[in-house]
C-alpha cells in the first residue's frame, strides 16, 4: 500500500507530559473544628462520680422535701362540699330540675376554723367533672373582642355563642356564657366578712387582655341562660370573676379564686356562708366545693411535692448506698484491660 519512508527525524511525536501544577487549592484548611480536634472535656462515670451524684441529689432533695412539707403543713384549708346539701330534700332525686327552676337557691353553710388562719385567706370554688379543657369549649372565645372595643363584632371563633338575635355578644363564646354564678357571703359572729374580689386575676390579664373600654353587650340575653350575667356598665377589665373564669383550667377538677378575706381567723371560729347555689353541675354530676385556704411561700396545701422530693431523695440515697455496695463487693479497677471484650471472651485470641 503506501511507500515505506523511514525518516531520521523524530519530530512531531509526543507532547510534554502534562504534569499539571499541584493544585493545593483543594487542600482542606486546617482548623480544630474541621479536623474534629476541638478541645473537649470527656467526663466519665467513675464510681466516685456516680455515688457523689446520687448523694448530691439526695442532699439537695431531702431538705427541699422537708421544707416543702413544712410549708404545706402551715397552710390551713377548709373545704366544704355543698352541691348536695344545698339542694332541698325533696329535690334531691331530681337536682337538675331544681337548679333549672326559679326556686330560691339560697343555702347556708357553717364552716369551723380548725387552726388559726392568717390573712389573706383565699376563697376558692372547686368544680369537679367540669371539662373546661374540652377543645370545643377552649376554642370558643374571642381574644380580640375582649381586648379591644373596636373589634367587638369579631365573634367568628365563638360559635355557638356568637350572637344573640343577630347582635354580637360581648363577651362571646361558651366560656364566658357558662360563667360560674354561685355567690358566697361570709359572716362571722353575725358580722359581714368582707370578701375582696379585686386583684384575684392576673394583672396582665386586666391590663392587656381585657379592655377597659369593652363593656358587656347582649350578654346572657338569649333564650338559653348559661351562667352569671355581667353588669353592662362595668368594663371587662374590672369583671375579675370573668377574667379568672376565662383562664381555662387544665383538668376537669379545678379550683378558681373567688376572692380574698383580708382578716385573720381564729381557731373554732364559725363562719356562716350564705350561698346562692345557682350553677348547674348536677346535669353532669359535678361536685362543688367551697374552699378557704391560706398560702405559704409555696402556694396552697400541697403535701405531694414534699413527699415526692423526699421519696426521690431517699431513692437516690438508696441508690448511692447500693452502688457503694456494688463497688465494694464487685470492684472493678477503672481502666482494667482485663474487661476488654477480647480479654473476656478468650475465643478472640
Amino acid at each position, binding site marked *: 500500500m503506501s511507500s515505506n519512508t523511514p525518516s531520521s527525524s523524530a519530530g512531531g511525536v509526543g507532547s510534554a507530559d502534562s504534569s499539571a501544577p499541584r493544585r493545593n487549592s483543594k487542600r482542606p484548611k486546617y482548623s480544630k473544628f474541621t479536623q474534629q480536634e476541638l478541645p473537649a472535656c*470527656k467526663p466519665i462515670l467513675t464510681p466516685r462520680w456516680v455515688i457523689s451524684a446520687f448523694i448530691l441529689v439526695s442532699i439537695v432533695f431531702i431538705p427541699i422535701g422537708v421544707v416543702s412539707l413544712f410549708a404545706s403543713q402551715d397552710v390551713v384549708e377548709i373545704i366544704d362540699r355543698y352541691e348536695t346539701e344545698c339542694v332541698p330534700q325533696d329535690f334531691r332525686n331530681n337536682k337538675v330540675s331544681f337548679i333549672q327552676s326559679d326556686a330560691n337557691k339560697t343555702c347556708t353553710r357553717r364552716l369551723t376554723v380548725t387552726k388559726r388562719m392568717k390573712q389573706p385567706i383565699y376563697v376558692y370554688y372547686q368544680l369537679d367533672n367540669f371539662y373546661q379543657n374540652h377543645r370545643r369549649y377552649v376554642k370558643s372565645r374571642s381574644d380580640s373582642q375582649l381586648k379591644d372595643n373596636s373589634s367587638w363584632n369579631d365573634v367568628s371563633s365563638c360559635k355557638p355563642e356568637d350572637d344573640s338575635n343577630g347582635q354580637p355578644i360581648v363577651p362571646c363564646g361558651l366560656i364566658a356564657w357558662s360563667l360560674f354564678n354561685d355567690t358566697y357571703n361570709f359572716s362571722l359572729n353575725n358580722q359581714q366578712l368582707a370578701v375582696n374580689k379585686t386583684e384575684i386575676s392576673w394583672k396582665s390579664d386586666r391590663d392587656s387582655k381585657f379592655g377597659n373600654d369593652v363593656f358587656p353587650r347582649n350578654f346572657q340575653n338569649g333564650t338559653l341562660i348559661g351562667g352569671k350575667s355581667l353588669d353592662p356598665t362595668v368594663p371587662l377589665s374590672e369583671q375579675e370573676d370573668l377574667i379568672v373564669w376565662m383562664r381555662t383550667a387544665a383538668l376537669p377538677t379545678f379550683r378558681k379564686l373567688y376572692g*380574698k378575706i383580708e382578716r385573720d381567723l381564729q381557731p373554732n371560729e364559725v363562719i356562716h356562708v350564705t350561698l346562692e347555689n345557682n350553677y348547674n353541675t348536677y346535669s353532669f354530676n359535678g361536685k362543688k366545693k367551697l374552699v378557704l385556704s391560706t398560702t405559704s411561700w409555696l402556694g396552697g396545701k400541697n403535701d405531694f411535692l414534699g413527699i415526692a422530693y423526699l421519696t426521690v431523695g431517699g431513692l437516690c440515697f438508696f441508690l448511692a448506698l447500693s452502688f457503694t455496695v456494688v463497688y465494694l463487693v464487685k470492684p472493678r479497677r477503672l481502666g482494667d484491660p482485663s474487661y476488654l471484650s477480647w480479654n473476656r471472651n478468650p475465643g478472640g485470641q
Partner: protein
Amino acid sequence: MAKGRIRRKLLKSHLYTFCLYPGAAGKAGQSVGGPGFSRIVHCNEPQMHSQKPFKYRANDISTTKYSFLSFLPKGLYEQFNRVANLYFLGCAIASLTPLSPFSAVSMIAPLAFVVGLSMAKEALEDWRRFMQDMEVNSRKVKVHTGEGAFNKTAWQNVRVGDVVRVEKDQFFPSDLLLLSSNYEDGICYVETMNLDGETNLKAKRALEVTLDLDEDEDFKNFKGVIKCEDPNPSLYTFVGNLEYNGQVYAIDPSQILLRDSKLRNTAFVYGIVIFTGHDSKVMQNSTKSPSKRSRIERKMDYIIYVLFSVLLVISLISSFGFAVEIKYNMPEWWFMRPQQADEYYNPNEPVTSGISHMVTALMLYGYLIPISLYVSIEVVKVLQASFINQDILMYDEDTGIPAQARTSNLNEELGQVDTILSDKTGTLTCNQMDFLKCSIAGTAYGSSSSDIELAAEQQLTNDHVNKVELEAVVSSLGEKDHKSPIKGFNFEDSHLMKGNWLREPKVEDIILFFRILAVCHTAIPELNEETGTYTYEAESPDEGAFLVAAREFGFEFFQRTQSSVIVREKYTASGKPIDREYKILNVLEFTSKRKRMTVIVRDEDGQILLMCKGADSIIFDRLSKDGRLYQADTTRHLNEYGEAGLRTLALAYKKLEESEYSAWNTEFQKAKTSIGADRDIMLEKAAEMMERDLILIGATAVEDKLQKGVPKCIDKLAQAGLKLWVLTGDKMETAINIGYACSLLRQGMKQICIQANDSDSIEKIKGDILKQINNGLQTIKDEKDPYAAFAVIIDGKTLAYALEDDMKHRFLDLGVQCASVICCRVSPKQKALVTRLVKEGTGKTTLAIGDGANDVGMIQEADIGVGISGVEGMQAVMASDFSVAQFRFLERLLVVHGHWCYKRIAQMICYFFYKNIAFGLTLFYFEAFTGFSGQSVYDDWYMLFNVVLTSLPVISLGVLEQDVSSEVCLEFPAIYQQGPRNLFFDWYRILGWMGNGLLASLIIFFLNIVIFYNQAFRIGGQTADMTALGTTMFTCIIWSLNIQIALTMSHFTWIQHATIWGSIVTWYLFLAVYGALSPDISGNAYQILVEALAPAPMYWTTTLLVAITCNLPYMAHIAYQRCLEPMDHHIIQEIKYYRKDVEDQHMWNREQSKGRQKTKIGFTARVEAKIRLLQSKMHKKQ
C-alpha cells in the same frame, strides 16, 4: 506518498503477527440497512444531520436527575414518597380544617422547612452533577470546519458526521470511526481502562482506503457514507460499512474508537463521529445509579412504622374515647351547648364525630413521629460529610485531591462494613512497574531479603512479641517508597550498576540478558528534549520497566526504524559507547494465551538470534537439554520473587542458523498470509515450531507497584475484622502476585484454585466446578490446624458458572470460609454479580472500591461504593458514594469516620425516638383528662419551638460525639467491630430507649398534674390554668431532655455546651419574648413567665424534681452497666482518662495487639505465620 514527509512513519502493523487481523471480516455488513441497523452517517457533512430523518442526539451528556422544569414536581414527588412526609403533608392539609388541634402555621411551617431543606440538598447535589457534565461537555477537540481547517470545538457541539482530530492522551469525544493515524498504516493505541479496566493498550487499525487521509487538508473534499447499527450497549461488536469513492467497505470493531477511551502512544488520529452523547456505547452502558439507603435508615423506617402503629393505636383509643364521651357525657355538658353542636361534636352521631376526631388525633399525636428527625439527620449527615471532605489526613498531597463524600446518605454505613470488594489496578496498585530484581545465569541480583522476612526475624530475636517494632516495620513498609528518581526502575545492587557487571563472572550471559531486555519488545523510544533521556512508549508497563532497566544498565534502546532496533551500549571493553543495530526479522508478540513474546533478529555480525521472554512455566517447557544449566537456581529465585509478590518473567534465547531460519520463515510467511479460520492455528503452530530448544539465561522480577500504604491499610482493615475480596480484570498470575504483595496470600496458605476446563461440555464443566468447590469446602472442614488459612482463586470464565443460581451459594460458602478471595479476569458485570452475591448471600454490608469504569457496576451494586479519584477517568468516582484519592485512606474513612458516624447516627436516632415519645405521650395522657377532645396542653408555638430547639443538642451529638479519639480508633481497630455487630442500634437498645421515653413521659405528666391540678401554686393564691400547667410541663421536658442528652454524650466541646445550655436558656428567652408579644399572638401565654411562673418557687421546684426524677433510671442504668458490664470503649475511655496509656505503655501496646481481630490475611498475620514456622523449625532442631 510523494509528499516527502519529515514526520517519521512506521508501519507498526508489521510488528504484529497475531492480533489486529480481522478474524471474520465479511460477516459484517450483511444486515446493514435492516431493522436495528438503520443509522446512516454522512461523513464530513454534519449539516446533513441537522434535521430529520438524520437528526441524531447531540453530543452533550446529562447525568442529572432533574432539569430546571422537572425539579419542582419531581423533587416534590420524591419528598412525599417518604411515608412520614406524606403523613405530614396530610396533616398540613388537614390543619386548614377545623379538625386541627393546632394552628395551620405551626403544622405547615416545619413541613415546609423539612421539605425545603431536603430539596435544597437535592438541588445542590444535582447542581454538582450538572457542573461535572458541563466540564465534560465543554472539553475541546479539533473538528473539521471545512476547507481543511480544524478548529477547537467543545465536545457538546460535536455532531454526527464531523471529522475530528484527536491528539495523544486525549479522550475520544464520541464513538468514532478511525480513518488514519500518524502511523503510516493507520494503527493507533487506545487505553480502555475506563471501559473494561484492562490496563494494556489495545491496537486499532484504520481501513486501508482511508489511510491517505492523514493531513488536515485531505479532508477538504472528503465525502463518504457510513451505514451501521443503531446505538447499543455492546462494547465489543460493531456492524456497519463505509461507502467511499463508490465502493463499500465493511467496518469491524477494530476501527471503532469508543468514547471515554483514550489515545495513547499515537500522536494523532482522524475519525468520523458515528455515535454521539447518550448514543455512544459507553453511555448506553451506563445505568442510573441506584439510590442507596443505609442499614440504619432502613431500620429506622421500621421504628417509624412501630411509632405509626403506636400513633394509630392511641388515635383509635382517643377517637373511641371521644365517641363514647360524645355519646354519653356530652349531652349532659350543658356548658358546651350540645344541642347546637356542629358535626364534629354531635352527640347524636358519635360515630361520625369519632371518625372525624381520628383525623384530629392523628395530627395531635403527630409529635410521636419526629418530623425534625429527617431534617436533623440530613443536617447531621451533611456536616459529617463535610468533616470527611475536610479531613486533612485523607488529603492526598501528590494529586491534591481530598476525600469526598459524594452522597451523605451512607456515612453511618461506613461503620458497619463487613466485606470489602476491591479492584486491583489503580486501586491497590498504581499500574506502574518497577524493575526490582533479576536472576542472571543463576545468580540473583537486587536488594536481598524481603520486608516480611526482615520483620519476622526481627521479632524472633525479641523474646516477647513486641507490637511497637512490628508497627515500626509495617509503617516503614508504607514509607519505604524508595525515592527512586527513575520511574520504572527500583534496582539496588552495586554488582550490576554503573557498569560493574563487567567485572562479574559470566559476563557474556549478562550482556545477552541485557540485550534481550533491550531488543525483545514492541516499544518506541521517545526523546525527552529537556533531559536528553529516552522514554518509552510501550504496550505494557512491564515492557517499559525492562527498557528503562536496560537503559540504566547501559543498553539504551534509542531508535526503532521500520525494520530494526538500535541499541547504544555504554559500557564496552573499549570504554566507548557503541550503537548496535538489530534487524528485526520476526516478532511473535505477547498475547494472554501465548504468555510469551519472541523476536528474531539479525545482529550486526549476521548472527540470527531468537530472544524470548515469557512466563516461567511456558519458557521452562521449551528449553533445550543443554539450556537448563541455570534452571534450578532460577527456579529458586523465581519462587522467592513470587513469594514477595513480584511479577516474574523468564528470559531465554537461541542462536539460529541461516538455513534453519529461512526454512521456518517460509513456513511462517505462508501461515501469515493465509486467509480463513485456520490461519490462527497455523500461525500458532509455526510459532510453536520456532520457540523451542531455548537456552535459559535468567529471570526478571518486576514489582507491580502497590499504591502507597496499601499493605498497611489492608493489615489494619483485616485487624478490624473486615474481609477483603479482590476482583480484577487482570490475569491470574498478576492477581496472585498482588495477593502476595498485599499479604492476602502467603507461603503456607492453602490456595484453592478453581478453574474450568475450556473444551468440555457445559454440563461437564459445571460438574467439575461444583466438585472443586465441594472439595475445597471439605478440605476446610477437615483442617485441624487452627492457624491454617485458605484462599480461593477463581477466574472469570469459571466464575460465570459458579455464579449461576444452582452453584452460587456453595461458592459463597467457600468464599466466606476462606481468608481471602481473589477473582481474576472478571468482567465488569461479574464484578457486580459477585458483589450482589456477597451482599445478598451474607446479608452483611459490602463496600466496593475501584477506580475505573469497569468498576462502576460493582460500585453501584455494593452497599457502599468508593471511587478512587485522581485517575483521569471519572466514571468510578461519578458512580461512587465516597471518593478517596488513595486506597490507604479507606482505613481512616472506615475505622475513624465510619465508626464515629455509625455511633453518632445510632445514638442520635435512639435519642430522637426517646425525645418524641417522652413528649408525644404527654399529649396523649392529657387527652384522657379532656374527654379526648383533642385539646393540646401546650401552646402551638411551644411545639414548633420544640421541633427546632431540642433538635440542636441532638445535632451537636450527631456531628461531634466521639466515644474515643481518632488515634484510639486507629490503634484499636477491633473497636470497629461494634459497628458490624450493630451493638448500638439493635432492637434491644431501641426498645430500651423507647421504654425510657415512656417512663419519662409518665413521670413528667403525672408529677406535674398531681402538683398543679387544684392547689394554688403561688403565694398570691392563684391556681394554675392550662397555660401555666402546660408551660411548666414543657419546661420540665426541656430540662429532662437536655439532661438526658448530656448523660448520653461523652465528649463535650464548647459546641455541645452551647447547644445544651443554649437550648435551655433559649427556652426561657423564648418564653419571655413570646410572653411579651401582644396577647393577640401569645394568647394565654401572655406574660406567662415573667408574671406567673418565674416568681413562683413551685415552678422551679417542680422543674428540678421532674428533671432529676426523669433521668434517675437512665443514670442508674448506665452506672450499673459501666460498672458491671463495661464495653470496650468504656474501658479505653477510662484508660485514657487516667492516662494509663502513658504510664503503662507495655499494657497499652499489649492490648492493642490483643485487640486485633483474629485474621489470617494482612502483613501482621503473615509475620506471625512466619514466626510460627520458624519456631516449629527450631523445636525440631532441638
